[in-house]
C-alpha cells in the first residue's frame, strides 16, 4: 500500500457516473493517510484471459481493501475493483510489483482506470486462499444419520399446486421441501464441494408425475439425502443445515407455511402429538396441546411447556420462544422429544416418582415405604410421604458461577421453604458448604439482561443488605421460579387467620411489585 506523511488535503473526486460494469477513470490525491487502499494480485506476468461483463481481460491486480474515510474511498474506489490502467499505463497482465511501482511513480497524484465487479465475479476471478492448492476436505469421515422421507403431500400455495416431500429425522418431522428446493440444494452443494462425487439426483420433469413416478422420486431424494448427509463435512455445512431447518419460504408468494408435528411428553409419560406451524410460539403450541388434551381452563393454568435440558433439569419455555426449533435441535437425544408438559413447581404423582428416582427428592429411610406405595398405586399416600421429604417441590438448577465465589460453582435450589446455594466444584461435584436464604430475607430480585444473570438482594441481621449475582443461562426461568414462590407464599398468607397475618412480615408480600415505597408503607401499617 502506498503511504506518505504528506498532510495535503484531499482533492475533489472525479467519478464518472455510468454503468458500474464499465471501466471508469478515478483520480486520487494522497491525504494524511496516504492513498488509502491496498493492491493485491498475481506475482507473475501474463496469464489466461477471463471475461468481466462480457469483455476478456488479462489477469488484473485488484483493490483488496479500502481504508474507511480515506482518499480512495472518497474518490469512489471500492473493494474488489479491478485495475486496468495506472497513470494512463495499461497494466493488463502486469505483475504486482509493476503496478505498485507505477502507483508510486506518480507521487501525490494517482489516476486509475478501474472496473467494479460484483462479489460472485470477484470470487470467480480470485478464488479465496482456502481453495488454492490441493483441497484436503476429508470426505471419508462419515456418520449415519437417521434421515428419511417416508411420504409426500400435495399443497396449494398462491394458486399453484405442487408436491412437497416430508423430511424426517429419527422419526421427527423436520420440514417439507419440494423438488425445486432439493435441486437448488444440490447445485449449491456441488459448487461448495466441487471435488466430491455426489450421488445422482432423481431427474427433472416438466410435467406432473404419476403416483408411481412420485414415489420413485421420493425414494431417490431419500437416498440422495442419506448419502450426502452421511459425509460429516457436507451434512454439517450451512446450506444443509438451512435446508433441513429453515422455514419454507415460497419466493413467489412470500408465504411462510409448513405444518409440522411436535411430540410432547405428558406427566404420565405418554406422548401427545400436535400439529402446529413451524414458527408457532410456545404460547400457541401450549394452546394447541391444551385443546388436544381437552384440559379445563383451571387445569391448563397449572401447567406449561418445559424443555428437558439435562437429566435432572427441565426449563420452562418462555411464551415467545419457538418450541419446534428446540424440538428439532435435539434430534440426537435418545428420548423421542425434549418438550414436556409439567406443573411449574409442585409435583404430581408421576413427577414425584421421577423426582425420587432421579434423586431430587431425598428419600433416606422412606424409600422402602415409597416404593411400596408406588407399587400399589396409592398416589395420594405417596404424595403425602413425598411432600415431607427434603427436595420435594424443589427446582434444582445445573451448576453455574456466582459472584460471591471466586473459585468454584454453585448449585441453586429453589424450594418452597427456602432458597439454597449449594457450593460445588467447577465441574459440578458438590462440596460441603450450603447457604440457606429464608424467603423473608430476600428483599428484591431481578434478571440482568446485559450480564445474562440473575441477582437478588438479601437482608442480613445487623448489617447492610447484600447483592448476589448468579450467572446461570437459565436466569429467566430462575426469576419465574422466584415469582412463583412468592405468588404461592402470598396465597398461603391470604389463607391464614387475621392474627397470624399481623405477625408475618409484610415486606415479604410486596416483593413481587418491587416497589420499595409500598414496602415501607406496609411496614409502617404493621407497626401501627
Amino acid at each position: 500500500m502506498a503511504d506518505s506523511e504528506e498532510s495535503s488535503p484531499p482533492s475533489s473526486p472525479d467519478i464518472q457516473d455510468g454503468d458500474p460494469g464499465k471501466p471508469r477513470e478515478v483520480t486520487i490525491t494522497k491525504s494524511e493517510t496516504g492513498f488509502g487502499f491496498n493492491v493485491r494480485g498475481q506475482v507473475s506476468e501474463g496469464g489466461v484471459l477471463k471475461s468481466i461483463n462480457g469483455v476478456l481481460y488479462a489477469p488484473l491486480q485488484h483493490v483488496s481493501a479500502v481504508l474507511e474515510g480515506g482518499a480512495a474511498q472518497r474518490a469512489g474506489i471500492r473493494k474488489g475493483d479491478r485495475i486496468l490502467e495506472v497513470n494512463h499505463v495499461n497494466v493488463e497482465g502486469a505483475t504486482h510489483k509493476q503496478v505498485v511501482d507505477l502507483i508510486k511513480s506518480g507521487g501525490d497524484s494517482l489516476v486509475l482506470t478501474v472496473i467494479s465487479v460484483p462479489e460472485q465475479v470477484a470470487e470467480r476471478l480470485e478464488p479465496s486462499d482456502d481453495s488454492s492448492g490441493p483441497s484436503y476436505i476429508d470426505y471419508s469421515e462419515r456418520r449415519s444419520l437417521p434421515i428419511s422421507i417416508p411420504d409426500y403431500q400435495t399443497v396449494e400455495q398462491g394458486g399453484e399446486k405442487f408436491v412437497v416431500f416430508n423430511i424426517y429425522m429419527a422419526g421427527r418431522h423436520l420440514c417439507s421441501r419440494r423438488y425445486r428446493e432439493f435441486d437448488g440444494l444440490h447445485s449449491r452443494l456441488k459448487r461448495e464441494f466441487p471435488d466430491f462425487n455426489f450421488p445422482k439426483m432423481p431427474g427433472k420433469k416438466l410435467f406432473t408425475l404419476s403416483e408411481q413416478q412420485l414415489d420413485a422420486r421420493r425414494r431417490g431424494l431419500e437416498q440422495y439425502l442419506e448419502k450426502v448427509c452421511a459425509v460429516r463435512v457436507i451434512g454439517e455445512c450451512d446450506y444443509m443445515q438451512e435446508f433441513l431447518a429453515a422455514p419454507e419460504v415460497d419466493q413467489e408468494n412470500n408465504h411462510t407455511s409448513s405444518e409440522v408435528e411436535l411430540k410432547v411428553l405428558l406427566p404420565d409419560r405418554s406422548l401427545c402429538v400436535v400439529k402446529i406451524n413451524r414458527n408457532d410460539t410456545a404460547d400457541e403450541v401450549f394452546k394447541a396441546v391444551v385443546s388436544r388434551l381437552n384440559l379445563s381452563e383451571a387445569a391448563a393454568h397449572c401447567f406449561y411447556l418445559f424443555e428437558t435440558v439435562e437429566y435432572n433439569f427441565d426449563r420452562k419455555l418462555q411464551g415467545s420462544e419457538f418450541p419446534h426449533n428446540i424440538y428439532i435441535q435435539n434430534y440426537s437425544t435418545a428420548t423421542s422429544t425434549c418438550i414436556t408438559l409439567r406443573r411449574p413447581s409442585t409435583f404430581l404423582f408421576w413427577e414425584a416418582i421421577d423426582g425420587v428416582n432421579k434423586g431430587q427428592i431425598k428419600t433416606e429411610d422412606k424409600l422402602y415405604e415409597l416404593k411400596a406405595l408406588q407399587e400399589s398405586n396409592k398416589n395420594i399416600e405417596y404424595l403425602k410421604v413425598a411432600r415431607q421429604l427434603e427436595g420435594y417441590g424443589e427446582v434444582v438448577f445445573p451448576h453455574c458461577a456466582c459472584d460471591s465465589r471466586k473459585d468454584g460453582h454453585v448449585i441453586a435450589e429453589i424450594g418452597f421453604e427456602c432458597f439454597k446455594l449449594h457450593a460445588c466444584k467447577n465441574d459440578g461435584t458438590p462440596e460441603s458448604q450450603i447457604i440457606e436464604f429464608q424467603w423473608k430475607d430476600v428483599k428484591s430480585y431481578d434478571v440482568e439482561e446485559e450480564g445474562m444473570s440473575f441477582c437478588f438482594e438479601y437482608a442480613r441481621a445487623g448489617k447492610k443488605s447484600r447483592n448476589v449475582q448468579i450467572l446461570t443461562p437459565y436466569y429467566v426461568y430462575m426469576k419465574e421460579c422466584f415469582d412463583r414462590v412468592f405468588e404461592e407464599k402470598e396465597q398461603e398468607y391470604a389463607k391464614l387467620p387475621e392474627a397470624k397475618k399481623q405477625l408475618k412480615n409484610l415486606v415479604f408480600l410486596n416483593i413481587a411489585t418491587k416497589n420499595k415505597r409500598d414496602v415501607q408503607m406496609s411496614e409502617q401499617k404493621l407497626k401501627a
Partner: protein
Amino acid sequence: MSFFGFGPSADIEIVLDGQDSRKTAEIKTEDGKKEKHLLYYDGETVAGKVNVTMKKAGSKMEHQGIKIEFIGQIELYYDRGNHHEFTSLVKELARPGEITGNTSYGFEFQQVEKPYESYTGANVRLRYFLRVTIVKRLSDSVKEQDIIVHTLSQYPEMNSSIKMEVGIEDCLHIEFEYNKSKYHLKDVIVGKIYFLLVRIKIKHMEIQIIKRESTGTGPNTYNENETIAKYEIMDGAPVRGESIPIRLFLSGYELTPTMRDINKKFSVRYYLNLVLVDE
C-alpha cells in the same frame, strides 16, 4: 428419434447466431475423428434459434414442454456415469402444448461464463454444448449441439530462458538452453546444446515433446504420457566444445494449452525431453 413409431416425431435443429461471422475451430472426438464447431470465448453471449419441424407434414405432436440447456461438463472416461457439470444454464422455450409444421424458438444465454478450454484427451473430455429437450410422455426428444471454447492468454513480456548443466560424472557434461519458459501454440523453441565433456560414443540426439494427462486426485491420480513429437537434432558423435542448435516449430504438432488442475479434476502438462542415444 423414435424407431418404434411412438406417435408423430419432429426434427430439432439448433442454429447459432453469427454462423457467417464467427470463426470455427476443430477438435478431436473420442474416436479420433475431427469435428468442426463454432468458436466461443469466455463471457460471450450464446444465442440462436431452435427450429422444430414435424417429419410428416400435417401431423402434430403433443409435448409437455420444450427447454434448452447450456452445459459445460467434464467427463472422466473411467467414470462414465458421473458428468461433472461446472456450468449449467437452462431456459424454457415452450410451455406444454402442441407442435404443428415448423416452429422456431429464439434463445439467448447472456455473457456465459466459460472458464475452461474445450479438451478431448485420452481419459478425460471437457466439452460445452447446447441441449434441446422436448419432453413427451413416453420418451423425450433430445438434440445436442457442441461448441468449442478457447481460452486466450496474455503473453508475458519477460520470459526467462531455461538454462541447465547436467551430466554423468567423468563421462558426459552438457549444458542446454531453451530461449523461453512459456511458449504459445504457434511458437518456436530455439535453443542449443553445448558439450562440455564427451567421453562416450553418441549415436544421435533428439528432442521430444511429452504430453502428460493427469486425471483423478490424491492417491487415485492416473498419469498418461504421450509422445507428441520426436525431432532429431543431431546425427553422429559430437566432440567437446561443439554446440548443437535447436529449432523446433510447434505449429506442426497437435498441442493444447497447459491446463492446471481444471475444476480439481484433471491437468495437462507438457515436457521437453532431450534424448541422447549411445552405441
